C-alpha cells in the first residue's frame, strides 16, 4: 500500500497553473523535503493536499484512498495534519489549552457526553489531559503551560505549533516552513525535534527555505519550480544538480 501518492496533480488559479501535472510519492516513515524558489507552488501543494483547495485535475491518494476534494477536517481525521507558515497557534489561549483543544482527534467522548459531563467524558478528559502533559514535556515546554501563547518568544511559538500538530495524532505531518525566523541554535533544536517525531512513526513532509536544515534532516528532497517537479533524490544529488542551481539562480535574477 502506498502512503501518500500524488497523481498528475494540477491546480489553476484563473489562467495560471500553480501546479502542473505533479507526480510524487511520499513513503511511510520518511522525512521528505520540498524546496523550490518563491512561487514554485509549495504552499499551493500543501493547500491542495490538506484540503484547502480542490485540485483542478489529478488526484491525491492517502493509503490508497482518494482524499482530493475532502474538507481539511476530514483529511485530518484520516491522519494528515498541517502547520501554517504564519501563526499556527491560538494566541489567546494558554499553552496548555492550545494542546488541549487540538486534541479533538484524541477524544472519544461525543457531543452529548461532553455536554452532560458524564463519567465517561470526565475519564476521557483526564486521559487527554495526561496526554497533553506528555506532549508538553516531550517538547520541554511544560513550564510554560499557563503562559498565553501570544506572550511566548518566537522560537517557543514555533515549537508550540509543532506540539499542536502532534496533539492531532498525525500519521503524516505537513510542516510549512517551521524554522522561519529561528536562529542557529533554535534551528538545531527544531531539527532534532522533527527527527524525534519521525522516530515516533510519523511521516514528515517538510517545506523549508533553510537549506542547511533541509539537507540535514531530509532523506529525500523534491524540487519544484513553476509548479513542476524538476528534481528528486537524496540531498547530495540535489545539491549537485545543475537544474536546481539554475532554478534558484533564475529566481534570483528575477528578484533583482
Amino acid at each position, binding site marked *: 500500500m502506498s502512503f501518500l501518492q500524488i497523481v498528475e496533480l494540477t491546480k489553476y488559479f484563473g489562467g495560471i497553473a500553480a501546479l502542473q501535472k505533479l507526480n510524487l510519492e511520499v513513503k511511510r516513515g520518511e522525512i521528505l523535503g520540498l524546496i523550490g524558489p518563491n512561487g514554485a507552488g509549495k504552499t499551493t501543494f500543501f493547500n491542495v493536499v*490538506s*484540503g*484547502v483547495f480542490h485540485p483542478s485535475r489529478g488526484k491525491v491518494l492517502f493509503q490508497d484512498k482518494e482524499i482530493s476534494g475532502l*474538507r*481539511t*477536517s476530514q483529511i*485530518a*481525521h484520516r491522519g494528515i*495534519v*498541517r*502547520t*501554517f507558515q504564519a*501563526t*499556527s*497557534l*491560538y*494566541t*489567546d*489561549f494558554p499553552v496548555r*489549552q492550545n494542546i*488541549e*483543544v*487540538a486534541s*479533538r*482527534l484524541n*477524544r472519544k*467522548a461525543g*457531543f452529548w457526553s*461532553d*455536554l452532560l*459531563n458524564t463519567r465517561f467524558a470526565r475519564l476521557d*478528559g483526564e486521559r487527554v489531559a495526561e496526554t497533553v502533559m506528555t506532549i508538553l514535556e516531550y517538547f520541554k515546554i511544560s513550564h510554560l503551560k499557563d503562559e498565553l501563547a501570544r506572550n511566548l518568544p518566537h522560537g517557543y511559538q514555533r515549537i508550540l505549533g509543532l506540539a*499542536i*500538530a502532534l*496533539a*492531532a495524532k498525525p500519521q503524516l505531518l505537513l510542516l510549512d516552513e517551521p524554522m522561519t525566523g529561528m536562529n542557529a541554535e533554535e534551528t538545531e533544536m527544531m531539527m532534532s525535534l522533527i527527527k524525534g517525531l519521525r522516530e515516533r512513526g510519523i511521516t514528515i513532509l517538510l517545506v523549508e527555505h533553510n537549506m542547511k536544515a533541509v539537507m540535514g534532516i531530509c532523506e529525500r528532497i523534491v524540487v519544484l519550480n513553476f509548479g513542476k517537479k524538476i528534481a528528486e533524490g537524496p540531498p547530495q544529488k540535489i545539491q549537485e544538480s545543475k537544474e536546481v542551481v539554475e532554478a534558484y539562480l533564475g529566481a534570483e535574477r528575477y528578484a533583482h
Partner: protein
Amino acid sequence: MDRKTGIQKAILLAAVLLFILLPLTIVEDPYFLHVLITMGFSLIMAVSLRQILMIGQLSFGHIFFMAVGAYTCALMLKAGFSFWVCLPAAGLLSGILGLVVGLPTLRLRGAYFAILTMCYGAATVPLIGSLGFLGRWTGLGDIPHPTIPFLAGSRQIADKTQYYFLILGLVFVTLAIFYRLDKSNFGAECRAIAQNASLSESVGIRVTRVQVTAFSIACFFAGIGGAFFAPYMRILAPEAFSIWHGADFLVFTVIGGVGHVLGPLVGTMVIGMLNEFLRGYPEIQTIIYALALISAVFFIPGGLISLRFLIPQWIKGGAPSE
C-alpha cells in the same frame, strides 16, 4: 482554588436567594416587576446572542428568531396547546430555522455574515406585517396565559409575580446550560474557531459543524425567549421585533462582555437600569448606547465582566500587580 470556588458558590447562592425573595418581600410594585421581567427575557436573548459571538460571528438579526418563537407560541396557545408544549416547540422551530439559515451562511467571512443577518433582521417587521395569519400590522391578540397543570384543576400564570417566577426559572435554566456549554470541550472549540478557524480545521475540529450547532442552539434560546414574550405581552405587534430592539441585545452583550456567561447579565442589568432613567428620551438612549458601545470597543473590549479580574486588586487596596 477551593476557597475561591467556595466563595463563588456562596455569592451565587446569595444572588439566587435575592432574586427569589425580591418580589415576595421588598418589591410589590408591578412596574418594577415588569422591568425585571423585561430584563429577564432580554437576558435570554443576550446570552444566546453571546454564543454566536463566541464562534467569532456577529448577528444583527437575532430578533428574527425571537419573532419566530413568539409567533409560534402565540398561535399554538390560541389553538389550545398547553404552554409547556408550546415553549419547547417554539424553541425547536427557531433552532431548526437557525440550522437552515446557518448551514449555508456561517462559512461566510465575518462582515458578509453580519450583512446577511442585518438584512433578515430588518426584514422581520415587514415580513410579519405582510402575513395575514400573523395579524399583519394590527397584531396578534388575546394570547391566553400559560396554565400549570395541578392535580386539582389548573392555575394560571396571570399576574406579574407569577410571570416573574416563570422567567426567573427560564433564565436560570438558560444560564446553566450556557455555562455548561462554556466549560465543555464544545465551548473551548467554539473559542478556538473564533481565534483561528483554519488551524482548527487542520487539527480535525469540524468547524462548520461546531459553528452551525452553536448557532442553532443560540436560535433555539431566542425562540424560548420569544415564546415567553408572547403570553406575557398578550398581544404581539410587528414593531416589537424591529431591528432596534435587536440592537438592544447586542449592546447588552457587548457592554457586559463576552468572556463569561454572566457578562450579558451584567450588561442587561446595567443598561436596563440606565434605560429606566432615560425613559421618554429615546434619542438620549440611542446616543448613550452608541457611546457605551464605542467606549467598550476602545477601552474595555472584554466588556464590564472582564473587570472582574481587577477585583482582587481592589480588595487588597493596592496598585494593579502589573
